[in-house]
């Protein structure tokens, strides 16, 4: 069950000058899982077994992989791939019958650590395993790594491109980075373009939690191919503040939200730029939400025509009390962009620039939402980060910040 609502932070826009406002479309999926059937899952677990994984990381990864295997039923299929500088198919894709499970669990126990990190080779081999199983199933590759790709294809842009191509062909990619040494930019982009999720795992003990979460989510997919379409009247342009894939054109923006699972919510926020116009005329906005309902297999289309802006005198516009919640949410997305920007300055060695961006974001949020406790907590966090930024971020902190901004921009917690 999906509920949704479109809100603009104000109703009136001035007649005599261009103005900005925010449109938020909140989409909520009910907590109950679809009755009757769930999508059968085809999963490739791709585990990094390079030298640096040896010890507790690989132990935990093995345990977590075994957990996944035990969770799944005979309708599901699993492949396990490991890689260092070479790629091994530990268990080719196979239906999880009891016998197959026992054999695979045994093979997982025997995974040993080795040499370098051929991330691309491992990932693509995993994808290869599930590639033939995209029809009516959920085909996903979960890549677990603690290192930089240093053998084979390593360019983040290229790998992200392939991830997007595979997603268009029904194979999605989730990435999990462990510790301080992986390339968060690479993994986050692979997951974002790959239609899966990115996880930052600070220590090995969390591997199981994250994998449980990912598996749990994957198993409770309620809607597939969720797409939001916003049609704008002439005189209005929109920019999406979140990191969702955007298509369509200037007049009709299409946001791809992919698969949504039980209890999940998404709230794309657009910045609307409105040209001046004649007093009292109305600008109607139309939102459409399309998705495939997993339980019934039907395609649904919901439509919302209630949002509109009205031109009014400047006095009337100024008298209006804007919707503070929408404004706060928009500003929090700006904060995430500020973190993104700060990390870029940090990577370039410009610590002062990095700190300045964070401090400015704190000030703005303070102005926009002085009364919100959540926003105030965020302001305090930003100020602390601004302090920290002056000395450059440590590797783990960089990852944590990257993770936090990526989650904010994609409405994940």
């Amino acid at each position, binding site marked *: 069950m999906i509920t949704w609502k479109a809100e603009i932070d104000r109703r009136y826009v001035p007649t005599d000058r261009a103005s900005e406002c925010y449109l938020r479309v909140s989409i909520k999926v009910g907590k109950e899982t679809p009755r009757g059937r769930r999508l059968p899952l085809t999963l490739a677990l791709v585990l990094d077994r390079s030298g640096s994984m040896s010890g507790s990381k690989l132990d935990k990864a093995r345990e977590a992989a075994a957990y996944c295997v035990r969770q799944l039923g005979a309708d599901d299929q699993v492949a396990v791939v490991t890689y260092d500088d*070479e*790629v*091994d*198919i530990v268990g*080719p*894709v196979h239906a999880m019958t009891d016998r197959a499970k026992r054999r695979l669990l045994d093979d997982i126990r025997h995974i040993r650590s080795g040499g370098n990190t051929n991330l*691309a*080779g491992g990932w*693509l*081999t995993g*994808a*290869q*395993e599930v*590639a*033939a199983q*995209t*029809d*009516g*199933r959920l*085909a996903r590759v979960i890549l677990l790594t603690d290192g930089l790709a240093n053998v*084979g*294809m*390593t*360019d*983040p*842009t*290229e790998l*992200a*491109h*392939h991830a997007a*191509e*595979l*997603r*268009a*062909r*029904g*194979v*999605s990619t989730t990435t999990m980075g462990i510790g301080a040494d992986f390339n968060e930019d690479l993994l986050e982009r692979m997951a974002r*373009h790959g239609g899966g999720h990115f996880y930052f795992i600070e220590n090995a003990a969390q591997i199981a939690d994250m994998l449980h979460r990912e598996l749990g989510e994957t198993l409770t997919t309620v809607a*597939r*191919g969720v*797409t939001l379409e916003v049609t704008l009247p002439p005189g209005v342009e929109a920019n999406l503040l979140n990191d969702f894939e955007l*298509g*369509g054109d200037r007049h009709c923006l299409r946001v791809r939200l992919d698969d949504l699972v039980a209890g999940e919510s998404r709230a794309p926020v657009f910045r609307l730029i409105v040209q001046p116009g004649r007093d009292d005329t109305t600008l109607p906005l139309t939102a459409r939400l399309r998705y495939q309902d997993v339980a019934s297999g039907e*395609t649904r289309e919901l439509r919302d025509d209630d949002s509109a802006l009205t031109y009014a005198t400047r006095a009337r516009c100024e008298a209006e009390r804007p919707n503070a919640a929408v404004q706060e949410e928009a500003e929090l997305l*700006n*904060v995430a962009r*500020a973190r993104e*920007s700060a990390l*870029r*300055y940090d*990577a*370039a*060695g*410009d610590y*002062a*620039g990095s700190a300045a*961006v964070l401090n*400015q974001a704190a000030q*703005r949020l303070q102005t926009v939402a002085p009364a919100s406790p959540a926003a105030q907590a965020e302001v305090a966090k930003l100020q602390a980060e601004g302090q920290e930024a002056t000395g450059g971020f440590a590797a783990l902190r960089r990852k944590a910040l990257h993770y936090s901004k990526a989650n904010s921009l994609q409405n994940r917690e």
Partner: protein
Amino acid sequence: MNINELATASGVTTRTIRYYVEQELLPNPEYGYPAQYTTEHLQRLALIRRLKEEYLPLDEIKTMLQGLNADELAALLTEHTANPPPAKAATLLTSAGDYINQVLGRGAVREQMKQNYAPPTPAPATPPATAARKEQAAGAVPPTLDRAAPMPPAPPAATAPPPTPAAMPTPALSAPASEAAIPARRARVDTPPGSIADEGAQPDASRAATAAFATVRAQEAAAAPQAEIAPAPTAGANDAETWRRIVLWPGIELHIAVHEDRRFNRIVARLLEAAHRILAEEPEKAEDTL
């Protein structure tokens, strides 16, 4: 309706409409002054637009639309107007398996190598690469490897004031800035169509190479230092005119015909070895030399 009305109704420019007619994606209009277009034109245009959104190249769309009658057209349009679920979309593209084959092996070349050396392959569950070859021949090759020329790290933005949060540089926008700052150091390679905008990534070219199946790795190492080679995304790997482009250094490239001859490949391998040896003597940061 005339062409202007069709343009308004479909949201496609008159120029594009004329182009589609010329390319036989649309039937000729009925003769007259002005030439008359029908609802079939409108439907076809809507469908072309949808299919383009699914990243189908025009010639594939053309093949799909050829010989469809009005009913089939309408059915297809309904199917594509409703947002296609990923599985359905996949049937329109090359399959995921073929795509990966192409990426992993650059198709035929790797297949050929496997056959030549006949190693015991673990046979991943995929169809043969014939479709991938066909796609290559059609020129629909995925974008790639060779754009990974060595690039300098993003320049410190110390001189510029930090952007205000309202005007944060989006990643896509920040790339041209770094390019402008250091034009000479960046080996320009045209971005292939359809590739994702560079998000400010700084790839390491010498390593941006093809991923390989574990089983063929050893044999490849004997044939040519594959790990150092970025194959060019050219069409038709099975004809003799396929070339690989290897970026050795910003501004220095080696073009090598793809060859099955072992002696030839050995020469190439030695040449590359020598080149890498020479280049390795250069300090990594060599701004002063440029």
